[in-house]
């Protein structure tokens, strides 16, 4: 008899193996990794370049993003339009994405078009033309995005959190897009110089996933990258020094705001730490899922917010650990108090065995859901190269998740959470929230009005 009164129990968790791959090193120093995925006749290629924003000093912030975007201007042989036409006439999509760690140039196409598409990708990276007009167009677009970012309370909170957490001069203390003054001053020379220095093979990786043959791809890659030389390999990761070891709060005044954007956290940990899997499970209990402690407290028990999350931004250096949420102005201090108290509690007591079990099931079950497409699989493999992780990192991921215990999660949280050093940023109506905040144990409260 069918029981409709309760959720049906799940069936047995099905085994899942991360697709195997072939790794070779090309003569120019590029690591090539090919994943055979014959499910659909598609292919994705991702070229990882050691050209991230983290190599840039504060006053050049945003240059890596600009150099990536201005690739739209085409190559020495094909101008921007001709290049787009060459790609699109074979149905290929090319996307350039620049972050803190690296610049990636990704290609997606039907598998049998890969040879021509990869040839185009290689020529773009090796011989970008960067015509004046296209550099200007990319710069105007970036300036518009910076303006939009500064108008959005959520992204303003993120920018202020970075500035508050990190010591001045640390790359992570700024926004990856740069600021209006700095980007406004960048021109073609800066862009060309950046590409010449960092769009280089040493330390680079090429990942291809799809309905392809590893041997053929190797021959193809060797051909299109032939003669490509130089580069300084993998640069040192930023140290990510903290601005301070003690609690401090900043209110970014937004007169008339009906909501406050809240960020609470401190400088986190680099992607490469040994106990990351334990920390991921522990963080899921704290604030990584719908049924996490923070969400059950702030959303379900108190009704302060639509949602709250705790995140570790994983970068080569220690990215920020931040709890983020948006709440009505009049409950701002209450919400901050609850966030501090949940962080303190899990740091002191650790998660329960039952909480850890639930988080493990969730993380193990959800893993294959984000591996449906060639682009998703290629991105995971590329991630291994960016952070120089072990070759079996994803193959063993589900097993490692399931091996986490309440003890190991607790130890990781104790090692990496620093309740005594929490920094708090609130973007909201200062008159309404600053005094209440000062009555909490959040350290000195400063108010800024930009």
């Amino acid at each position: 008899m069918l029981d409709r009164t309760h959720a049906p129990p799940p069936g047995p968790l099905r085994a899942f193996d991360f697709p195997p791959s072939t790794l070779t090193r090309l003569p120019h120093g590029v690591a090539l990794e090919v994943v055979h995925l014959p499910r659909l006749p598609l292919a994705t290629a991702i070229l990882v370049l050691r050209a991230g924003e983290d190599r840039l000093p504060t006053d050049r912030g945003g240059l890596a993003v600009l150099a990536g975007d201005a690739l739209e201007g085409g190559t020495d042989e094909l101008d921007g339009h001709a290049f787009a036409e060459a790609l699109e006439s074979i149905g290929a999509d090319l996307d350039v994405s620049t972050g803190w760690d690296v610049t990636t140039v990704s290609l997606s196409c039907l598998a049998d078009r890969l040879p021509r598409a990869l040839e185009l990708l290689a020529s773009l990276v090796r011989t970008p033309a960067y015509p004046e007009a296209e550099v200007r167009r990319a710069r105007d677009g970036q300036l518009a995005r910076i303006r939009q970012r500064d108008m959005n309370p959520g992204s303003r909170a993120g920018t202020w959190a970075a500035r508050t957490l990190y010591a001045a001069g640390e790359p992570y203390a700024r926004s990856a897009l740069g600021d209006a003054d700095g980007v406004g001053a960048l021109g073609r020379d800066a862009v060309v110089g950046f590409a010449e220095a960092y769009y280089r093979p040493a330390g680079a990786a090429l990942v291809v996933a799809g309905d392809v043959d590893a041997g053929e791809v190797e021959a193809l890659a060797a051909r299109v990258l032939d003669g490509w030389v130089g580069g300084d390999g993998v640069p040192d990761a930023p140290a990510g020094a903290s601005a301070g070891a003690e609690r401090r709060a900043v209110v970014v005044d937004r007169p008339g705001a009906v909501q406050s954007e809240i960020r609470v956290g401190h400088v986190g940990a680099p992607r490469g730490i040994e106990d990351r899997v334990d920390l991921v499970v522990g963080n899921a209990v704290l604030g990584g899922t719908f049924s996490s402690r923070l969400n059950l407290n702030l959303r379900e028990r108190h009704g302060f917010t639509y949602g709250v999350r705790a995140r570790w931004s994983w970068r080569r250096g220690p990215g920020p650990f931040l709890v983020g949420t948006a709440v009505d102005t009049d409950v701002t201090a209450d919400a901050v108090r609850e966030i501090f108290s949940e962080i303190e509690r899990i740091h002191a007591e650790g998660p329960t065995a039952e909480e850890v079990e639930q988080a493990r099931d969730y993380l193990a079950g959800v893993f294959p859901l984000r591996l449906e497409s060639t682009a998703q699989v290629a991105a995971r493999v590329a991630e291994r190269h960016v952070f120089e992780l072990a070759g079996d990192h994803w193959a063993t991921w589900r097993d490692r998740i399931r091996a986490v215990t309440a003890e190991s999660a607790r130890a990781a949280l104790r090692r990496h959470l620093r309740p005594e050093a929490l920094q708090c940023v609130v973007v909201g109506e200062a008159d309404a929230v600053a005094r209440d905040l000062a009555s909490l144990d959040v350290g000195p409260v400063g108010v800024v009005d930009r």
Partner: protein
Amino acid sequence: MSVEIEIHRHRLANGLEVVVAPDRALPVVAVNLWYGVGSRNERPGRTGFAHLFEHMMFQGSKHVAKNGHFEAVERAGGSLNGSTWFDRTNYYETLPSHQLDLALWLESDRMGWLVDAMTQEKLDNQRDVVKNEKRERYDNQPYGDWMERMQRLVWPHGHPYRHTVIGSMEDLDAADLDDVKDFFRTWYVPNNAVLTIAGDVDPADAFDRVERWFGEIPPRGGAATGGAGAGRIAAGATAPVAVPMERPAREVVESDVPLVRVFIGLRIPPFTDPAFDAVDVAAGVLGSGRAARLYARLVRPGVVRDAFAFPFPLVGGASILLVGATGFADSDPEVVERALVEQLESLPDLDGTEVERALALEEARAARQLERLEARADRLSMYTCLLDRPERVNEDLDRLRALTVEEVRDAAGRWFAAPGRATLVYVPISEGEAD
């Protein structure tokens, strides 16, 4: 390179159309339901109701607590949502495949036993949520009312596509609990729905499970058993209109927008008409990709900041093609409008190379769309609900490839270059304001 999706189909005795597309590559399953009801089925004075009703579908049912739907799926590591459109309303979950029963339990409970859990309080609450959504997404956004204005320009009085999916505040206020119950009994019946399951399932087992969870729900309402897939949605087309529009229409809106933006709407044949294929390809020549005419001729040279062109796949007698562009802080609205019109009027001179490019992009994108099971399931539901033919996912490219350049040119001439177009121009109130 052609893509072949394995498709199985079965209809329950109560009329529910079930499509199963097995793909065991990953332990993931997507469940997708299309109900054959959208904003165009709303009665006068109740605009926005189909969408309000969609919200009520997440407020619990007889055996599922309020918000229990979201909570259960997220706890299981899945994702879910629903959306309302002119011709249909859809609901979907993607889950680890060992949780298939969870999705079937949730969906069958609200299809069979929603009304048991409906209360005035929930209705009032969701009405507020929807009104907030309207304020946030439409009323307080620059250009937020463009769709509403465009619909009034393109469709005549009384036409079911003339009002927006979000509806009016007044009509939302007028809705009561009886409306909820009536709407449910009329439209949310197994005989007006398509259920697609794509991914890690065995077809026979999946059909068994569907029978177990959905089989006892009786067919109800005026809709005859026979399934939404029997092309009934298209057949129910009302208010025939001329295609293209007989006369041009235009509106200039001076409002608090950052930049000049021009929208042009054109009536085109409905999605169910074979002529739609050529419209689709012509739209690709005009607006798809960075070598397309709009990008190459207007965006790259700096005439406008961005531009787009795409047809809606509506089925009620006619559909709509939208073309538009945004200028810069100092753009003259007339220059932007003229630039767009020139591209529409000259489109019939397109050549074979351009058609090839549009087809190549479409081919790769169509294949890529089938990679994600959520999108695959939705497309299968769509083709079953609108065309009674899920197999269309395997035939689309061949159909497009069979088109001649002449046919695409002809479509450009008849529908894109037609003088009967609706033009909507947004002009910033304070000139010289930065974007």
